[in-house]
């Protein structure tokens, strides 16, 4: 029982990160119908910026995170701006464009920070909380709290603000333009928020893992899987899917050891075969 619960806790902690990554994927997809393949690399850039300001500039962790979110958000805006001319011409090219951006971001990271990477010390140096023999890292609680807050803010933005409502409209119908909604701006905001979420995920995952230029790959694929599992384009789906992938991964690791990756993705594939639209699939948007 103890192993079961401890495994669950470990899974939820990385799962919360995957959920943030999945939310970024879904946000861009529901607005533009585009899979942003550079998203994993944007996470990596966010992790690097946060860790650089935290370690080299000695800023407080929260401030370093804020800087990372702003800078990375601007990178998101830039990516969208460069790809925008392609949107109404060739959507496949736009997709490939995001792959290209991913490669560029990784190369830029290697040029700026080198290929080897850095370890980020835990910013919350408090002993783990003990409950019934279970140990919960205080940092994990911080991650969960921030991830929850970010989710609530995003949902509030999408449902309660004019700009958010406009993005919902764009997501649902191309005819949004006819009622005076600036589609390009909505797309830019989607990319910006997606990148900001990526920076949040990257900054938070730094102290849990090891920041290096190729870290975006694993985080990207797990986050993407989470988004698909939850129902691509759905925000609640991204959260449930991301955490589900984290927990699934943790239990597969416990029971199948060396074969855990295989088991995780076989289970994932089976779920997707049974329910191709994911858990919250009915809300999935498809504009492409």
């Amino acid at each position, binding site marked *: 029982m103890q192993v079961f619960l401890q495994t669950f806790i470990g899974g939820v902690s990385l799962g919360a990160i995957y959920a943030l990554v999945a939310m970024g994927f879904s946000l861009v997809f529901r607005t533009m119908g585009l899979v942003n393949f550079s998203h994993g690399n944007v996470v990596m850039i966010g992790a690097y910026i946060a860790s650089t300001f935290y370690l080299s500039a000695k800023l407080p962790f929260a401030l370093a995170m804020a800087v990372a979110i702003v800078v990375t958000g601007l990178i998101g805006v830039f990516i969208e701006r460069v790809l925008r001319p392609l949107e109404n011409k060739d959507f496949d090219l736009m997709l490939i464009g995001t792959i290209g951006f991913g*490669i560029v971001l990784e190369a830029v990271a290697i040029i700026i920070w080198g*290929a080897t990477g850095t370890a980020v010390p835990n910013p919350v140096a408090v002993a783990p909380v003990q409950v019934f023999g279970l*140990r919960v890292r205080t940092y994990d609680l911080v991650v969960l709290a921030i991830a929850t807050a970010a989710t609530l803010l995003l949902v509030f933005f999408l449902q309660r603000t004019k700009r958010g409502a406009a993005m919902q409209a764009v997501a649902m119908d191309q005819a949004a333009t006819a009622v005076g909604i600036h589609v390009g701006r909505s797309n830019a905001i989607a990319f910006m928020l997606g990148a900001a979420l990526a920076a949040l995920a990257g900054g938070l995952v730094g102290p849990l893992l090891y920041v290096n230029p190729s870290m975006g790959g694993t985080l990207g694929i797990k986050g993407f899987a989470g988004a698909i599992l939850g129902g691509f384009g759905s925000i609640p789906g991204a959260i449930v899917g991301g955490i589900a992938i984290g927990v699934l991964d943790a239990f597969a690791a416990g*029971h199948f*050891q060396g074969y*855990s990756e295989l088991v995780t993705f076989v289970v994932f594939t089976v779920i997707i075969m049974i329910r191709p639209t994911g858990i919250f699939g009915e809300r999935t948007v498809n504009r492409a």
Partner: protein
Amino acid sequence: MSRFVRLRAAVLSLALAIPVALAACAAPGSGDDSKKSTEGPIKIALVDAQSGQLSSLGAWELKGARLAIDEWNAAGGVNGRQVELGVFDDQGDPTVGTNLARKISSEGYIAMIGTAESAVTIAMAPILRDSKIPNITSGQSPGLVAVKSPFLFLNGPTSTTYDETLAKYIVDTKGIKSIAMITNNGGYGKGEHDAFLKALQARSVTPVDDQVVTADQKDFSAALTTIRQKNPQVIFIGAEEVQSGLIVKQARDLGITAPFAGAAPQGTPVFASTAGVANIEATIVSSPYLSNDINDATKKFAAAYKAKYNEEAELHGAKAYDGTQILLTALKTSNVATGEKLAEAIRATKYAGLLGNFAFDDTGVGIFATAIGLIQGGKLVSAG
């Protein structure tokens, strides 16, 4: 390794592979001529991860090898010819490695330094054997010996030596029998797992727990909680630097206080910074190069390394330095031979290196001893 990158790499390499494949096809005939060239620089390839999670190994290895080559070149080269080092990035990926093996063969490199990853080296070995290119690797998996290639040499001991020394210290000297194991299923981790388990079995000790993780895994809650319940006195780790560091960090967060034990990766600064210096106290390390202060040769090497790169020398740089020195010595004694003759010259080279006295046997292993060190206050000190 990231699958995203691989996916992209696969797409990109479609375009790149065609010229490479053509060059590879042309290699058997045309390659021989360029190998026999007796003028111009001597071309040696260094293949290692220069990007990705294992790139710190590649960076150290490059520094060690380059230091040795620069010293020879400054002293007039090998028999009057300068040595040229070509650097290739294998990304820690066996597929990339095999492509590079064909590439260095077709481009006329006569010998190869690297890689630092056993799995990559094992993948490259058959191609290098067919192309008759001697290879001095920094890998230490017993799987390298199992390849039985006469062109493959190791610049350090195998896991068998590392782990035999470790088991001897833990079980025989310290009398500890309650040992748990956590290893990854990659080339290095598998070698460590088998070698340490064999050393324990030889002492009639059964590990209280034997956890295997994947080389990509980031969360070890399940494995570590299971280990914690068995309450071992020592936990053996067989994983690369970063992953070992993450395992130790998470273990301490889960309340495991037992010391860890392992081979080369546990003695590195990357392991220390990933785990956190306070978390690695009392780690037991089996290494052929415990510190830069072993003797005059290591002090001299460490000083030159520091002067050139402004950082402290460590095991992997030292290993690559030794390996490169052996290769260059063999080139000198064989009057810049290639192929089988060069391999024979390497095997015949007796070399007093930083790690000890090298004398290669038929398996390509030249050194058979490691020493035990303990991490105290973040520094590795001899347990002697």
